[in-house]
């Protein structure tokens, strides 16, 4: 009990330093290792991003279906899921609930599916702004804001109607 509460205590210290934030970044990368979408919730310099993306993509691409969906990298945990040619990778703090994030990826994909209808890599590539809008409705400051597909998509639909 006491060790545990100390663990919490240390967590508290960490959150005071503002380090705990749940989701640190979301990446969509294809099989060739090309980034199709990158959204960071903590500031990294361009060099840091390039290095990080390169390392993570190499690690995840080398894995097969029989292996688990979690990869430990530096002080992140990467939760990833592959849909056809596209990898969705989410970097989280090491004590985040991994399965919840894994299903959050699926929720994101289902949401995009609902909007684009059978979403594919090209949809995301050529409608980067829409992908960003959706993500913006779902995640903010590294935390989940909304999980209802209807609510996520309503601002986009409104905008489409306006056009």
């Amino acid at each position: 009990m006491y060790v545990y509460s100390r663990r919490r205590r240390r967590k508290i210290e960490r959150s005071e330093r503002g380090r705990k934030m749940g989701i640190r970044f979301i990446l969509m990368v294809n099989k060739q290792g090309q980034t199709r979408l990158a959204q960071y919730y903590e500031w990294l310099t361009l060099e840091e991003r390039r290095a990080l993306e390169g390392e993570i993509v190499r690690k995840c691409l080398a894995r097969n279906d029989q292996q688990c969906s979690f990869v430990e990298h530096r002080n992140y945990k990467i939760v990833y899921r592959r849909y056809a040619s596209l990898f969705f990778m989410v970097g989280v703090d090491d004590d985040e609930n991994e399965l919840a994030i894994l299903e959050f990826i699926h929720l994101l994909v289902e949401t995009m599916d609902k909007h684009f209808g059978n979403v594919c890599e090209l949809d995301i590539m050529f409608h980067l702004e829409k992908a960003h809008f959706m993500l913006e409705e779902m995640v903010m400051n590294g935390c989940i804001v909304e999980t209802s597909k209807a609510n996520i998509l309503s601002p986009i639909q409104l905008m489409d109607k306006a056009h």
Partner: protein
Amino acid sequence: MSGMRGLSVFISDIRNCQNKEAERLRVDKELGNIRTCFKNDKGLTPYKKKKYVWKMLYIHMLGYDVDFGHMEAVSLISAPKYPEKQVGYIVTSCLLNENHDFLRLAINAVRNDIIGRNETYQCLALTLVGNIGGREFAESLAPDVQKLLISSSCRPLVRKKAALCLLRLFRKNPDVVNADGWADRMAQLLDERDLGVLTSSMSLLVSLVSNDYEGYSSCLPKCVKILERLARNQDVPQEYTYYGIPSPWLQVKTMRALQYFPTIEDPSTRRSLFEVLQRILMGTDVVKNVNKNNASHAVLFEALSLVMHLNAEKEMMSQCVALLGKFISVREPNIRYLGLENMTRMLMITDAQDIIKKHQPQIITSLKDPDISIRRRALDLLYGMCDVSNAKGIVEELLQYLSTAEFSMREELSLKAAILAEKFAPDLSWYVDVILQLIDNAGDFVSDDIWFRVVQFVTNNEDLQPYAASKVREYMDKIAIHETMVKVSAYILGEYGHLLARRPGCSARELFGILHEKLPTVSSPTIPLLLSTYAKLLMHAQPPDIELQKQIWNVFKKYESSIDVEIQQRAVEYFELSKKGAALMDVLAEMPKFPERQSSLIKKVEDVEDTADQSAIKLRAQQLPSNALVLADPQPVNGTPPPLKVPSISGIKLDHESASQTQSQPNGDLSKAQSQIPSADLVGEMVDSLAIEAPPVDMGSHQRVYREEDGIPDEVDGTAIVPIGDQANKVEPIGNITERFNALCLKDSGVLYEDPYIQIGVKAEWRGHHGRLVLFLGNKVTSPLTSVQALILPPAHLKLELSLVPDTIPPRAQVQCPLEVMNIRPSRDVAVLDFSYKFGTSMVSAKLRLPAVLNKFLQPLQLTSEEFFPQWRSLSGPPLKLQEVVRGVRPLSLPEMENLFNSFRVTICPGLDPNPNNLVASTTFYSENTRPMLCLARIETDPADRTQLRLTVASGDSTLTFELKEFIKEQLIAIPMGSRALVPAVPVPAAPLAQPPSPAVDANDPGAMLAGLL
């Protein structure tokens, strides 16, 4: 892309690029294009700006530096139309960070959007601030954001963003949200029906609670309500149900928030929560649909965490362990991974270790899993669960795995194996075996620290030296050995090779031959090491070996002109020295012992491990704190502090008899009083849950008669709590201090001292002549204890180092103060802790004996007759072997006596003495001066008169023999009695320490005759 053809064309172009170089050219062209447009065309339409800004984002995403155009992105924020505004907000939050100057320019525009009437604009602005807002935003926008969050006229779509925006502002400046004013509102927020608002409010709550759980305690029952609502699927709209599961993310977040409250006091809330948790634990089945299965298990794993945190009843805990045990053996890799991860977290919980150990074979299987993520978890878990009982098995598995592990894991693996071998070695020769195997299997991954450490151990332990030398000699016969092995071998053979001189193949000349064979294969930093070894071999060669001298001199001559300065210098110096004979002996004398220090390896692991909390090592390492740590008291306040007691006696010196009577009287009363106070043992429970076994406070038993002859200062006894202030305010200890001390002499954890305000618990670990005691100072009351002081009065034979003790112990908090102990030489003197604190106006002080007593430095050892008798005979008489007839012994049956001896770690060796009335025993004593020293004892009892016996003690050190004999005598005479009437303790005159008396042995005594025969 709606209306942005230029952008689509650009993206297609990029996509069609054949290689990175072509892509770069295209990007550069586009950047040039955008730059010129921004520069020249001042009247750029918002539409064009939007298009260019998107291109910039796209280029940025590809990994190219976009160092201009930020101003244009920011300026779009104030565009009048939604599409432009939206792009401005999104691209700004991607390209800029909170420290960017341009962002300041936008504060006003952002604020206008936040306080404006257009809710879509509000959303955009709140999101931007939530993602990249800094301190300035926090100070100027927090009140507006708070207003939006609690406003009843605001729609959920704005409020959910306001919640996370406030979270950001709070993290940037915690002062903007004050628990006093905000806690009630936060609690109200949790009554919200909209699940979107609840989801983001829950994240806000987690952050607030992690900062100040007390301030937000009113939110706790609300969280439980939300959880109940979700678990029962009440009022959950379809769109928030994910594969039949009511928002798994909100469930997870809510359970996470609950883990930031140390405990749940309200019984009905606790009951409701446990009902929900029980339902989750029992009701989560494996289903075919992957998504549903993942979502339900996400909830299940969070529930497991919460149950562990709440320290649930045993039954529920074992349910959790059973589940985890099931998970680590399923086929689904995600579940297996999480099972291992959570089991590692579970290690932190008292009592769980033993159940986890049952799964060791399965965990070892996971160490061979094809998935590196799973192997890492298994390694971490094995490392965390390793202790003395299973170290051999685990380390051997790690060694075996090392040869097949991938390179990225080998270094970590070998470091961990080395640490475990060092920490939990059942004997040092095993440790040497492990490290040598490690070097042999994975030399490339064995850092210098590891082989330095083994050299240190061998140097400091004489017994180990011949063993280590013979072991490395064996490795030298291998055809190809790692350079690190050459280094260790050269060092050890140089220092201790001569100990093997009589063995075949181990003469100085042969050792030189076999080492010199390796020289051509090693790199130049190893050569100086070899040269030193040659010089030492030459010195140790007895009788002097002219042929060897010639050979070695040739080597020295050869390297006299080496271009490597280190090699050259050594060659020249050794050559000159070796011609001088006697001087060589001085210069090349055996290396002195290393000062004991904390293993640099453990430090290294801490540095290497970046994965913070996750890693069990780090957790373990932090359990050995170097400084006092203040812990919050997780227990509820369920009683008022016990009233002050008016003492019935004062601490005047009394003579033995009256002291024993008057003392036991008030203590007896006290214990009755104590049992009536419900919270009296609260801290006891707390210490209990800290894995410290509190000693049973046996009120019925009687205290030991306090004898001045013990050489222990009088004031350390129970009566010694001398309040400095008014006598009427005197604070009485709870329980008997002497009894507590005696109990702690025989075990390693328990309560040392307790009074109505404070409880001092002790937990100790002993290893050789070192010890680590942790004092747990627990404040039992709801006001702070101040002016806390702890001084150690060490006896001359102990080196003690107490870490800083904080001046104040916060209300109901516990402070840990580690104390390092080193035993220098045998002595029965006792260290005293001079402890004082202030409660209100009264000063309380106590002098407490610390249970760092002689028997703590004993290591049980059972000998066979072949081992025992030669030693016994070789220690032939005083001062190494002392004998004494002890009278006034507490009558004990032989089995009772055996238990007593075993309890203070003097091991009875059954069946060694032919006379069934006699016992022989052995143990090893550790101190810096004696190092491990074998001690033997024999007790001859008289079946006709159990109150007397003859005691013979022998060891290789006269002081040790004497001290141990006196110690055993004390134990036999003075252990707590079953009845007060039986206290005829016969004072034993203490002899001066320096001159152990030689007791007269009666030559006619048949027992003595027998002793001679033994």
